[in-house]
């Protein structure tokens, strides 16, 4: 591997600015890396060599003219396959959308293009973002670069694995219950779920509209801040997007990298730790906490009693919204169409017959499971008991956050209870799979921002663990300040980035 593959986006920009490399060279480098290792990792569902190189060429021309489009102009990126890309396949990891080519760009994608980031391709994911392991992709699982027999997290396992396997310096993920942060934790990468409404959802194929949020995936905290500033901000196409400037996130990250957290109050959430958490994960969490204290932060314990109901509320709200969102996949206008045989008496199949057959063939089991759950939860007579109650829990969780943020500037927890588990290990046990998102779901329910960054390798398996920082809504800058400070302190301890310890996959078969 050359140095540029291992470089952060920030370092790549510096090299581009210094004229030491070009976007075409970098884009080619990553495309070649994808070609070399993705057969083993399966992070990409679609690679757009031609498109990426065309964008890179345009970027080089801009830079040569002294007119770069943004702070990341020329740095290639991978995009989760749940975001609509004009002219590029968008499958959401589902057979249902195999071959569908959107006629429009998601706002996030449009902003990436506008900012000059060549799009390498679309990354693998659990079907319609439903899962925590990327095993529910209709196109085969993504493998964790740290151990190819293990899951890369989910649903955005493709984006996280692409960045961890040095197939891309940056990626876009989406996070409904942890789908950016949990993959970040188990692959040793950084992932940020912005404040709900901070990044446009227009063009993001919704799983649960009130929870979904797109965000950055990267190898460093500063890189995420740079990317966040590119994709964030108000969008008139998304009524739920917040009409406020995205904030000085890069500045916060640079400030935090100084390593001084004097006066910062860090709240440890009592309910997110202890039973059910892997000892190695807890050990790395405690170690990081000690580093924050050493940097001047004050640690307090906070209690969020309603969090114990978060998973249950999430698994009512999310499937309810999803069941309605996925109704549009009916084979009438796009996507898979399965036409059943005519009946024995010669009756031709009706539109309803085609819908039924197509949905039966196009959706995987986990998607069907959630459609059934959601349809049930919204049914009259059950609505109050399920969807209605879940919304009340949601309010209580928001109140818990409000109370906790009275006592602390940021809240922290392990991102995921365990390190990466083996492929197939939890596939037949949906509830065990759902428990992966225990610590990440509350932030989605309350709309607050969160970051996961690597906290080190668990002693028992040598696999990455993640440290989660949560901040009040619209205070995303705190994530970057605290995240960058911790990253600096940890890297000092490790003697470099954690990913430097990851397998190089050089021998991986394509």
């Amino acid at each position, binding site marked *: 591997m050359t140095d540029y593959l291992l470089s952060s986006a920030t370092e790549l920009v510096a090299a581009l600015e210094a004229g030491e490399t070009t976007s075409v060279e970098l884009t080619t480098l990553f495309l070649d890396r994808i070609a070399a290792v993705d057969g083993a990792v399966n992070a990409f569902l679609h690679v757009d060599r031609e498109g990426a190189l065309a964008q890179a060429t345009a970027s080089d021309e801009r830079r040569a003219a002294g007119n770069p489009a943004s702070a990341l102009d020329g740095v290639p990126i991978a995009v989760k396959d749940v*975001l*609509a890309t004009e002219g590029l396949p*968008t499958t*959401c990891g589902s057979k249902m*959308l195999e071959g*569908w080519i*959107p*006629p*429009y760009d*998601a706002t996030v994608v449009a902003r990436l293009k506008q900012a000059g980031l060549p799009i390498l391709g679309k990354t693998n994911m659990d079907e319609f973002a439903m899962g925590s392991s990327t095993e529910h992709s209709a196109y085969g699982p993504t493998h964790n670069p740290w151990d190819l027999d293990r899951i890369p997290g989910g649903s955005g396992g493709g984006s996280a694995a692409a960045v961890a396997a040095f197939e891309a310096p940056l990626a876009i993920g989406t996070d409904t219950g942890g789908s950016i942060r949990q993959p970040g934790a188990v692959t040793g990468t950084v992932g940020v779920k912005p404040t709900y409404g901070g990044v446009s*959802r*227009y*063009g*993001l*194929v*919704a799983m*649960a*509209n*009130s929870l979904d949020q797109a965000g950055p995936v990267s190898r460093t905290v500063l890189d995420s801040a740079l990317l966040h500033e590119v994709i964030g901000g108000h969008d*008139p*196409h*998304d*009524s*739920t997007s917040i009409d406020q400037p995205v904030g000085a996130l890069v500045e916060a990250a640079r400030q935090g990298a100084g390593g001084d957290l004097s006066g910062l109050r860090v709240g440890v959430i009592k309910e997110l730790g202890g039973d059910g958490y892997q000892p190695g994960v807890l050990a790395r969490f405690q170690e990081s906490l000690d580093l924050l204290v050493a940097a001047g932060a004050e640690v307090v314990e906070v209690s969020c009693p309603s969090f114990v109901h978060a998973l249950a509320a999430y698994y009512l709200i999310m499937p*309810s*919204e999803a*069941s*309605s969102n996925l*109704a*549009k*996949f*009916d084979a*009438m*206008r*796009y996507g898979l169409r399965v036409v059943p045989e005519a009946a024995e008496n010669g009756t031709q199949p009706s*539109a*309803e017959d085609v*819908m039924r057959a197509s949905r039966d063939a196009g959706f995987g089991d986990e998607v069907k499971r959630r459609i059934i759950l959601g*349809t049930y939860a*919204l*049914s*009259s007579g059950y*609505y109050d008991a399920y*969807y209605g109650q879940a919304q009340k829990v949601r309010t209580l969780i928001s109140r818990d956050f409000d109370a906790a943020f009275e006592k602390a500037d940021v809240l922290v927890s392990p991102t995921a209870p365990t390190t990466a588990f083996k492929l197939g290990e939890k596939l037949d046990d949906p509830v065990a799979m759902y428990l992966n998102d225990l610590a990440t779901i509350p932030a989605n329910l309350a709309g607050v921002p969160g970051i996961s960054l690597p906290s080190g390798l668990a002693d028992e398996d040598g696999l990455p663990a993640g440290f989660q920082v949560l901040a009040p809504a619209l205070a995303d800058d705190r994530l970057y300040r605290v995240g960058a400070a911790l990253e600096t302190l940890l890297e000092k301890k490790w003697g470099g980035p954690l990913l430097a310890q990851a397998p190089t996959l050089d021998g991986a078969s394509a």
Partner: protein
Amino acid sequence: MSTDTLLSFEESLEKFDPAMGLEVHVELNTNTKMFCGCPAVFGGEPNTQVCPTCLGLPGAMPAVNAKAVESAMRIGLALNCEIAEWCRFARKNYFYPDMPKNFQTSQYDEPIAFEGYLDVELESGEIVRIDIERAHMEEDTGKSLHVGGATGRIHGADHSLVDYNRAGIPLIEIVTKPIMGSREKAPEIAKAYVAQLRELIVALGVSDARMDQGSIRADVNLSLAPIGTGELGTRTETKNVNSLRSVERAVRYEMQRHAAILSAGDAILQETRHWHEDTGITTSGRPKSDADDYRYFPEPDLVPVAPSREWVEELKGTLPELPREKRARLQKDWGFSDLEMRDTIGAGAFGLVEETIAAGAAPQAARKWWLSELARRANDTGTDIAELGVTPADVAAVQALVDAGSLNDKLARQVFDGLVAGEGTPEEIVAARGLAIVSDEGALGSAVDKAIAENPDVAEKIRDGKVAAAGALIGAVMKEMRGQADAGRVRELILEKLT
């Protein structure tokens, strides 16, 4: 087609009390659709007014059309409704091929306007207050065209085509509370309500309000209860009754049909019914029960609509005069008798007469042209009076020519012929057809001289003092002049020459 047994209308009333509920869908005339920027105009080539949002493409999101919210609020205010301080859109989930998302974005338990009324005037002059339960915003569906079947309905069709141009057009659904105690007047009340609601919508300028094009659609809910019990019976919902006359007929038909079923001791099936304009009957649609489960929940892609009280007050100031009040005021201004007023409205010429008067014509003249001349032509050709090709400005221009003495009534009728034939403006037609009254004294004088010379016996009578005989000479002159002479002036000339 129908095997329905009907009781007579009178018998139905002897045994039962009708209760009605009317649901009227109004398609707004906003420039763009409810949740996207596509044009909302009627009649485009199929599937040319579509985008990711109104096609329900994966990832696309709705954004509320503020103009549609304003129109909804103005309708609510004109119906004396409360305007919600805070309300949400909801998803109504069901599968249908012409509904792109397989849910309709509508409002459920939080309508933008609620608790109002409309005072409706019946033919007798009686005013009936119709209570409005709610007016809410929603989006229209696409339009299916079933090809290859005999009926145009989906059953038996070979295949179906869907046009999504209509998908996402803003709709306001206005729902009445149950209308009870209307007895034999139920059909008339239903018609009068829809007619006067339509007038109100027209006055507000928020919709084309064309029932024939479906921009106003009425659904009629009807049930019967044993007389005097005040109960609500099982209802049927007759969909898409697309003319005022049909509203009245549909109520009457369902009253008679229900009465026959209930009298036979059978139960009414709760269902939707299709109205057939041609045969004047309803047929069974699909069963519809209160347990129909649309799994409503708040639309998570949209933020709540929370109109400020200042905005509400501002919109109150934009409300037009109520059509009923306006009619009373204008009748007085114009000096029309009740009969004249009723005829004018009955002919569908009220607005046309109003505009003609506004363009300068005297009220009686305006009424005369529209109700005699133009209403007759409309009748003869089966055309809507407003679609004749004659505008209020044209009528006012013709009358101005009459007032100026350049046209008489007979010539004016020929100008209307020209207008209906599309020959141009009244002035152009007068010129092209050579219709102006001849006021050239020389030409008139020669014609008079000729008439005197050709009718010596008549001339003699006049010279002898029988002035009444002048009529015969006037007729001769008018014939010579092909009617294009001022008969009064001709008479003067004859008398000058002979007395």
